[in-house]
């Protein structure tokens, strides 16, 4: 089961220049909340920015990661 640190590290490793703050929303290891800042978001719609982050986890979203609530910030 991933923890908040795993989620943070995977986002930062996968998205160029990304900095992520991740918290385990419920303490249960399956509902996370992340704020992600990256220059990779420039020019993308909010929808595309979120897809980019969800894409890091593929089918784990909705599986072991029940929810990953996102705020994305382009910089």
């Amino acid at each position, binding site marked *: 089961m991933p923890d908040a640190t795993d989620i943070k590290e995977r986002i930062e490793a996968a998205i160029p220049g990304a900095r992520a703050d991740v918290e385990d929303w419920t303490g249960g290891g399956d509902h996370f909340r992340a704020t992600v800042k990256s220059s990779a978001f420039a020019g993308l719609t909010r929808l595309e920015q979120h897809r980019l982050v969800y894409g890091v986890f593929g089918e784990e979203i*909705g599986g072991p990661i029940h929810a990953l609530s996102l705020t994305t910030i382009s910089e």
Partner: protein
Amino acid sequence: MSEQENPIRDAIAEAIAGNEVILFMKGTPEMPACGFSARTVAALQSLDTSFAAVDVLPDPRIRGELSALSQWPTIPQLFVRGELVGGCDIVLEMLETGELAALLGAEGEAGTIQTPAVAGGGALQIENRL
């Protein structure tokens, strides 16, 4: 599998095309089965938006086909005029910035008749097509 052999995906695509504002959610607007769905319904209701709603819970295939179609992994999913707007986070962010009101209001200005809210009716439609 071809389109013809995939009645659930066809029914979902038809529901999206046939409803100006449609929310795929867990549970119904009256009785949401998940906090994210509940908050998204509340956002739409705060703008007095009429919307069609489909409960994805009765048949797990609905959710699978929807995500394959929309390329979006989570529920809820809001579509306006055939386009995916996003899930709970995006809808709430757009509510705060006024973008959601603009998106939904533009529809009213264009004189489009809004679809009356269907609580779970969409899901029944989809089931009836199996």
